[in-house]
């Protein structure tokens, strides 16, 4: 039964507190497009994407209008291109151009899946794809790429880690005229997931259905506003308030996903229980942590507060929807969060603290601008550290750092829009080169004898 209080609360959440659906992402399998003739394969891919997703944007906009809730992004994810392109001998960049053309044709803003999964070693096509990532990202605007270099079951492929340090740098170097934007579209994962609706790390896993709809929710502003009404609540009550708020946010995701799936005639995959910030005022995860009682995000206590927030979001969200998946947790991308940017600028938030924070939340060192003179080995070692946290703790972790070529600490890279802007943050300069250059595989960790 509707009542005035509930109606006004929903409207306030949407209009004043930035409640929105962050993304409806359609996952499309390209396994039936594989062909040793690259032109034939690309034609099939273009046809399949533009057929499956032809109504995605329109349906998203219709739902947005009828339910009055903004749906910020409509996106696509496809089968990792390393598999699709393995049979072709030519450079896979053509696949990226095809993805771009198809994405533009259907009107989505990003398409993910220029990806390779190499946690156990390189299969046919994997190295060729990875080496083509800088060119692919520099010659397209909406194609996103990811590489999975480790997992709890396989350990960490240190050869791939070594390779990716150089690739990240090259992505930034090739797009130096565009604020090094190439590196912002590349994520290096440990324990990547098949049904992630969020970019830049989305791809459509091979175990998934042919086509499906996944939804990512948002709403840091709503959580912060709910907490601000209880300035003297103890921490157990704080957790309960977050749970209740997360439930409401996630219900909207479930509704939108169900409705989109029905209208598109495509099965509904999962809701990603996430708190995804934007650079807009009032849409910051850092500000939630500060509302809980930290003077500035990054100070001592940040990891504990974030652990509580992340757990409460999941507990509240799980009951709100029928299938949960993706990355599910609070995101802490620095450049996409007004509070994180401020904390980084004032010196309260450092990379080492961010690394600790990634052990208790989703997803990893995300959208962090590092000095332009950071070597490939140091980037590889950042990736290795982050992957180790994911591998040992049985969770997804990732690295998306952007080397600001030619810039030093204190300067900014500014992309505008959802990607935001980030200050160059300092990185430990001592060399891990010998460790990284050893190559090989870090063995999978033991998961018994837990003391």
């Amino acid at each position: 039964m509707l009542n005035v209080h509930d109606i006004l609360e929903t409207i306030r959440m949407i209009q004043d507190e930035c409640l929105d659906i962050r993304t409806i992402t359609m996952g499309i399998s390209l396994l039936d497009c594989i062909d040793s003739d690259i032109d034939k394969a690309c034609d099939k891919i273009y046809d399949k994407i533009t057929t499956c997703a032809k109504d995605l944007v329109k349906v998203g906009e219709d739902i947005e209008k009828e339910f009055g809730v903004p749906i910020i992004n409509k996106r696509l994810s496809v089968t990792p291109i390393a598999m699709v392109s393995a049979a072709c001998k030519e450079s896979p960049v053509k696949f990226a151009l095809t993805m771009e053309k198809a994405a533009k044709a259907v009107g989505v803003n990003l398409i993910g899946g220029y990806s390779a999964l190499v946690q156990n070693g390189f299969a046919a096509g994997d190295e060729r794809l990875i080496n083509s990532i800088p060119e692919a990202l520099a010659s397209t605007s909406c194609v996103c790429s990811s590489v999975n270099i480790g997992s709890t079951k396989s350990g960490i492929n240190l050869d791939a880690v070594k390779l990716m340090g150089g690739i990240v740098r090259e992505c930034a170097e090739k797009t130096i005229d565009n604020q090094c934007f190439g590196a912002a579209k590349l994520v290096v994962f440990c324990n990547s997931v098949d049904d992630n609706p969020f970019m830049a790390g989305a791809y459509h896993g091979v175990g998934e259905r042919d086509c499906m709809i996944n939804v990512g929710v948002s709403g840091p502003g709503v959580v912060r506003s709910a907490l601000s009404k209880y300035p003297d609540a103890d921490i157990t009550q704080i957790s309960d308030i977050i749970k209740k708020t997360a439930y409401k946010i996630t219900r909207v995701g479930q509704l939108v996903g169900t409705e989109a799936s029905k209208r598109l005639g495509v099965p509904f995959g999962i809701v990603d229980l996430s708190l995804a910030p934007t650079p807009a005022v009032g849409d910051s995860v850092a500000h939630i942590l500060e509302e809980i009682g930290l003077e500035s995000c990054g100070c001592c206590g940040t990891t504990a507060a974030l652990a509580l927030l992340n757990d409460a979001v999941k507990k509240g969200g799980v009951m709100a929807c029928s299938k949960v998946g993706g990355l599910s947790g609070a995101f802490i991308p620095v450049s996409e969060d007004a509070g994180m940017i401020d904390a980084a600028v004032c010196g309260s938030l450092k990379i080492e603290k961010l690394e600790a924070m990634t052990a208790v939340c989703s997803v990893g060192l995300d959208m962090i601008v590092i000095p332009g003179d950071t070597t490939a080995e140091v980037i590889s070692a950042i990736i290795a550290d982050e992957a180790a946290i994911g591998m040992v703790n049985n969770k997804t972790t990732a690295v998306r750092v952007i080397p600001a070529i030619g810039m030093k600490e204190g300067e900014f890279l500014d992309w505008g829009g959802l990607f935001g802007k980030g200050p160059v943050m300092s990185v430990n300069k001592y060399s891990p080169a010998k460790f990284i250059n050893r190559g090989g595989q870090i063995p999978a960790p033991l998961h018994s004898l837990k003391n």
Partner: protein
Amino acid sequence: MRAVITVVGKDTVGILAKVSGICAEFNANVTEVTQSVLQDMFAMIMLVDISKLDKSFAELVDRMTALGDSMGLKINTMHEEIFNTMHTV
């Protein structure tokens, strides 16, 4: 199937008449209205049956938004399902 129409803004002559006029034009039956005027602020929540609409719901949303803009009011027209989903287990 119902929709919730909320209207907030400075009170003036004919708000209720114009909103319900558009409802009638779209064949949307008004089932419940709660309204208050505090000093010179007007606030109304209206429940309308949209199962027999003779045009699309999206058009109704657009018309109401346009009416709000022309009268300096904030008019939201939303499907009731979002409220039911969000506030009930």
